[in-house]
C-alpha cells in the first residue's frame, strides 16, 4: 500500500428531495488500501458508492477517483474502476463468457488480453466449466462470482464492492473474500467495500469508515477504532464454580453481562479491574478458570458509534449485578 491517495472525497453531498442522504463527507483512500464502509440500512453507503462510480452525480462537493474528477471527467474516472453493484446485474440472456467479454470490450481491453484475463478469472472463480451457461441459469452465489469476473476483467485500479457477500452461503462468501484479498495483495488493487458484515470488514479492511444518517462519524483502522472507546473495553472472567456472585468481587457500577459460563465486565481500566477480581477471588478461595482483558469488537464499536450501544449484543443477556 502506498501513501498516494487514489480516492479523495471532499464535502460529498447528495440530496433526495428534502432528505439528505449523504451529508458533506470527506475522506482519502490510499492506493492499495482495502477500505470498508459500514453503516446501518439507509445510512448512505450505497449512495456514496453510486456517486463515486458515476451512477448519480453529487448534489454538491466532489471526489477524485484515480486522479479524475467524478463530476468533470466521469467517463475517465470509470475507466479505472470495476464495480460490483448491490444487486447482481449480469445479463440474463448472455452466457458467462459473453458477460465477461462485454465488460472487457466496454473497457477497451484488447481482444487477446481480455480473452486471457477472462480465462484466468473463470478459472479462479470456479466458473471455467460454465462458460456457455446463461446468466439466468446461475445461482445467486455463482452470479456474484460472475459479477466479480466482469468487474475484474479490465484489471481495474479500484474495485468497488457494494454488499458483495450479502445473502451468499458461507462457501461463496469465503471464495469472494479470499480472492479480493489476493487481488489486493498481488495486484495492489484498491478495494472500496460496503458491508453489513462487521467482522468481515474487520478481517478484510485496512481501514474502516462508519457512516450514520449520511455523516461520516468515524474513520480509522479496525484496531484503532476498537481502542477508541475505552468504555467498551472489558474483562471476561470464568470461575470453576458457576455459583459465584460477581458483585462480591468488584467495587464498581460497571455494566456486567452474564455469559453462558462467566461474566463480562465493561470498564475503562480493564487491567486494574482484572487485578482486583483476581486478588479478591484468591482471598476468598474462589478458583478462577480464565481471566482475560478484551478490547471491544468492531460490532461493539459500530453499535456504540451509531448510538445503539445500549442494545445488548446477540447471544448475550444483560445480567443483574450479583
Amino acid at each position: 500500500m502506498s501513501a498516494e491517495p487514489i480516492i479523495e472525497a471532499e464535502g460529498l453531498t447528495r440530496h433526495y428531495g428534502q432528505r439528505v442522504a449523504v451529508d458533506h463527507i470527506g475522506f482519502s483512500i490510499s492506493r492499495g488500501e482495502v477500505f470498508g464502509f459500514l453503516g446501518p440500512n439507509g445510512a448512505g453507503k450505497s449512495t456514496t458508492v453510486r456517486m463515486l462510480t458515476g451512477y448519480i452525480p453529487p448534489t454538491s462537493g466532489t471526489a477524485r477517483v484515480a486522479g479524475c474528477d467524478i463530476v468533470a471527467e466521469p467517463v475517465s474516472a470509470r475507466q479505472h474502476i470495476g464495480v460490483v453493484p448491490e444487486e447482481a446485474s449480469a445479463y440474463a440472456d448472455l452466457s458467462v463468457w459473453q458477460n465477461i467479454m462485454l465488460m472487457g470490450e466496454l473497457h477497451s481491453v484488447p481482444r487477446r488480453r481480455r480473452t486471457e484475463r477472462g480465462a484466468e478469472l473463470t478459472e479462479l472463480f470456479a466458473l471455467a466449466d460454465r462458460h456457455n451457461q446463461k446468466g439466468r441459469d446461475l445461482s445467486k452465489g455463482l452470479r456474484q462470482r460472475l459479477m466479480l469476473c466482469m468487474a475484474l476483467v479490465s484489471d481495474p485500479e479500484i474495485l468497488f464492492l457494494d454488499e458483495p457477500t450479502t445473502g451468499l452461503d458461507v462457501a461463496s462468501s469465503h471464495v469472494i473474500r479470499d480472492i479480493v484479498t489476493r487481488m489486493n495483495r498481488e495486484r495492489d488493487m484498491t478495494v472500496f467495500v460496503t458491508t453489513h458484515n462487521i467482522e468481515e470488514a474487520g478481517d478484510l479492511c485496512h481501514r474502516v469508515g462508519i457512516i450514520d444518517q449520511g455523516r461520516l462519524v468515524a474513520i480509522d483502522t479496525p484496531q484503532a477504532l476498537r481502542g477508541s472507546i475505552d468504555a467498551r473495553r472489558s474483562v471476561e472472567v470464568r470461575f470453576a464454580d458457576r455459583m459465584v456472585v460477581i458483585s462480591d468481587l468488584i467495587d464498581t457500577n460497571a455494566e456486567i453481562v452474564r455469559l453462558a459460563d462467566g461474566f463480562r465486565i465493561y470498564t475503562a481500566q480493564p487491567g486494574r479491574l482484572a487485578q482486583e477480581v483476581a486478588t479478591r477471588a484468591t482471598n476468598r478461595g474462589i478458583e478462577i478458570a480464565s481471566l482475560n482483558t478484551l478490547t471491544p469488537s468492531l460490532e461493539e464499536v459500530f453499535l456504540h458509534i451509531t448510538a445503539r450501544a445500549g442494545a445488548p449484543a446477540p447471544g448475550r443477556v444483560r445480567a443483574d449485578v450479583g
Partner: protein
Amino acid sequence: MSADALHRLRRQAHAAYVIAKKDAIIYYLKPPVISFGIVFPLFFYLAFAAGRSVPTGTMVPGIVAMALFFTASAIGPLVTPWERQARTFERLVTSPASLEAILCGDVLAGMAFGALLSLVPLLLGICLAAHVANAGCLSLGITLGALAFSAMGVLMAAPPTNAPSQIMMLSSLVRLPLIFISGVFVPHADMPAWGQWLSPLSPLSYSADLIRVGFGGAAYFPVPLDIAALIGFAALFLATARFIHRVTRDKAR
C-alpha cells in the same frame, strides 16, 4: 481536434458498437421479434389496402416504409426499461461508456435491425415487378428513416420507468397516429387539410416520400427537405432523450 479528444471519441464509438452488438444478441435476434417485425407491418398494410386496388407502385413503397417504421422503433422503447428492471442499466452507466455512447448504441441496433428487415418486403416488392428508379433516394429513405425511427424509440425509452408495459402504451399511442398522417395509406394529395398540415410533423412522411421517389413515384416534399428533416428528427430525438436521461439521473436513487 486534439489527439486525446480523437482517442476518446474512438473509444466511445467503439463502446456504442459494443452496446449495439449486445442489444442485437439480447433483444433483436430472436425469432419472435424477427417474424413480428416482418409479418405485422405486412398484414397491417394489407388489411388497409386489400380490395382497394392499390397499384404496386404505391403498395410496395408503403409496405417497405411501414416495415421500416415498425421494426426500427419496435424494441428501442423497451431496452432501457428492461435494463432498469434487470439492474443492468446501472452496470452500463458505471462502465466507461458515456450516456451518449449508450444511446447511440441503442439507436445503432434499432437502425440496423430496421434497415435489414425492411430488405425483406423490398426484395419481395422488386420480385413483384416494382421498379427501382432511384437507388440513391431509396437507400437514403431506408437508412435515414431507420436512424430517425430508432432514435424515436430510444426517446420513448428515456422516461424513468422500469415497467416496460407503460412504455408499450406510450409507444403505440405515438406510433399509430403517425402512420395515418404520413401518406403511407392515403396519398398526401387526398388527405384532408388538417392531415396535410400535420403530415410534416411525422418523420415517417419524409422516409416514405424518399422510398416512394426511389420506386419512381412523385415526391411530396423536396428531396433535400426529406433528407434534412430525417437527420433533424434523429438529432432532436437523441438530444431530447439525452436531456431526459440527464434530468432523471440527477433525481435517481
